[in-house]
């Protein structure tokens, strides 16, 4: 135990204070005994003085100890506050004694505190500044941003989200997102459904194009939506959703499609006539020499291509307006491909490409719209023709059963597609400008995808630059369309590429 200066001083003080009255008493006794000349006087004085002395010592010790204990505690606490623990000797100016040490320690502790407080407040200012920065970034974004908690309730809602949806932060905070911000495609809550399916996953992202969102005033927006799922977020955020207003682009796109469709429709009549008269030239003996026949044949090929383009434009317009009107029927896929094979082979031959078919005979029946499927095959073949070289171009169609699905591939030995273009291939109006051939409207693959998906199937591409591409689609043998019953009246008609004829109307005996 450290030597206590405070205790020593206190002891001294009490000792003096306690000794003085005993001395005074002794002196008084002595004076009194002198006056009475009593021989016992000296002895009594000595006894009194010894008694006084020892009482003074005992009391001084007790009081000093009582007083020193709390002071020692204060001292220790002050040292600790100052951050020196039990070792004030570290400091440069060495304080003398506990009290000075305590004062010194308290002084340093207060300095320490002051420093801490100023540090903390500058940190708080920094945090506040960061928070303001984030808030202004969030609120100055033109995209709507909101966050959801575990229950799908809105916990964050930025300014753009508020402006775009016409709803205030107060009106949506704590509300279920699917109630106040229902993003729909064809009436379905696609995003909410996806979020629900991603429960417990982390860092998954989903994105949707052209979803419809009703504003508070009843008008609707077309938006692109992106959502990210978070797991174990310390702030309790379960999903972060951003949406981008595409209403004006969407309207523009609609106008573009409508205008182009109108123009395409007007073009159909003269093209019908050109095709018709070329057909008459080929079938009537009008005295064409071989060179003339060849020229007519070339013209027929070009017109076929032209009407293919126009059909695509009209096809997109139908897709956009939800008027695809597929009439599925149970067909034999092998027979279907064999039926369209001659026409496609001829189309390739006219362009000086070699087209061959390798179709498995062991395919189950499939519920599809034959006209739609012919459009898919025509587009894939035309695409392959456009991206192969005349003369050396080879295209092969294969079809087989894989995992209960009918898989059909169109493989070519053409230019292939660069990686950066692959992801955009199936989008509307996309054409890769880097390619030598930029023929076509950029609609063919979009139409293929729409038709295949409408049948519950899917399409993809494998490609290698300079080596060729492999476009493959799969059709489930139990399709989405299979659930629909064919229109009862159409069951007794024969549907061909150009329309339908009632079976009962066909001439008997043929």
């Amino acid at each position, binding site marked *: 135990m450290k030597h206590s200066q405070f205790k020593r001083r206190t002891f001294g003080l009490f000792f003096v204070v306690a000794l003085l009255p005993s001395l005074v008493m002794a002196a008084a006794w002595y004076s009194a005994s002198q006056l009475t000349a009593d021989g016992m006087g000296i002895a009594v004085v000595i006894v009194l003085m010894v008694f006084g002395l020892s009482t003074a010592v005992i009391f001084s010790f007790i009081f000093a100890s009582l007083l020193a204990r709390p002071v020692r505690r204060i001292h220790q606490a002050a040292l600790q506050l100052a951050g020196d623990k039990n070792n004030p000797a570290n400091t440069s100016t060495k304080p003398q004694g506990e009290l000075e040490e305590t004062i010194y320690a308290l002084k340093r502790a207060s300095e320490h505190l002051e420093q801490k407080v100023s540090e903390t407040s500058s940190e708080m200012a920094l945090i506040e500044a960061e928070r303001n920065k984030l808030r202004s970034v969030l609120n100055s974004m033109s995209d709507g941003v909101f966050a959801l908690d575990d229950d799908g309730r809105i916990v964050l809602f930025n300014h753009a989200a508020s402006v775009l949806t016409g709803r205030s932060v107060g009106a949506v905070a704590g509300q279920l997102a699917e109630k106040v911000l229902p993003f729909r495609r064809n009436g379905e809550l696609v995003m909410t459904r996806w979020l629900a399916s991603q429960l417990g996953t982390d860092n998954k992202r989903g994105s949707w194009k052209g979803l419809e969102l009703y504003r508070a005033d009843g008008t609707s927006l077309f938006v692109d939506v992106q959502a990210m799922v978070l797991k174990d977020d310390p702030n309790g955020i379960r999903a972060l959703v951003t949406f981008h207003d595409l209403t004006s682009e969407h309207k523009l796109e609609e106008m573009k499609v409508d205008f182009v469709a109108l123009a395409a429709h007007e073009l159909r*009549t003269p093209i019908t006539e050109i095709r018709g*008269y070329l057909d008459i030239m080929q079938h009537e003996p009008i005295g064409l020499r071989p060179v003339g026949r060849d020229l007519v044949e070339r013209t027929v090929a070009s017109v076929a291509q032209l009407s293919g383009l126009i059909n695509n434009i009209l096809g997109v317009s139908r897709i956009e307006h939800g008027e695809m*009107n597929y009439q599925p029927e149970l067909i034999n896929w092998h027979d279907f491909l064999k039926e369209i094979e001659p026409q496609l082979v001829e189309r390739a031959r006219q362009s000086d490409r070699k087209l061959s078919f390798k179709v498995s005979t062991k395919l189950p029946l499939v519920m599809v719209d034959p006209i739609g499927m012919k459009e898919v095959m025509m587009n894939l073949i035309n695409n392959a023709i456009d991206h192969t070289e005349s003369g050396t171009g080879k295209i092969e169609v294969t079809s087989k059963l894989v995992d209960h699905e009918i898989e059909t591939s169109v493989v070519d030995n053409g230019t292939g597609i660069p990686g950066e273009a692959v992801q955009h291939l199936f989008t509307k109006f996309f054409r890769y400008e880097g390619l030598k051939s930029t023929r076509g409207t950029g609609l063919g693959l979009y139409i293929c995808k729409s038709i295949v998906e409408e049948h519950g199937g899917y399409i993809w591409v494998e490609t290698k630059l300079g080596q060729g591409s492999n476009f493959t689609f799969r059709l489930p043998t139990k399709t989405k369309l299979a659930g629909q019953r064919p229109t009862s009246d159409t069951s007794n008609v024969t549907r061909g590429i*150009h329309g339908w004829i009632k079976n009962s109307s066909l001439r008997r005996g043929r």
Partner: protein
Amino acid sequence: MAGSKTVLFVEDDKPISEMYARALTRAGYKVDFAYNGDEALRILSTEQYDLILLDIMMPGKTGIEVLQSLRGPDGKGAAKTKIIILTNLAQKKASLEALKAQADGYIIKADIVPSQLVEVVGKLI
């Protein structure tokens, strides 16, 4: 051969009907023309045809209206006549309407060349 089989071509676009009629005539059919629905009904009130090729979008009565009045209760005596809609309307609605009004066929003009039309007609009459 088609022999004396007769066809009434109801179409407001003259070049189109003449083009198809040329191939039909060469194949041995006798082809008459009407350029709107009312004219077609007038002709049909006195004449009998084996086949009517009927456009939909025409001035005045539409092809569907002509079809309905021909196949309706006061059927103008066209019960034995085959009727094919020949149009560029590819909408399912029009096609179903034609089927309901008892057309014998529905053909998209842009998808059929004259020689193919001759082939289809040959299967019907």
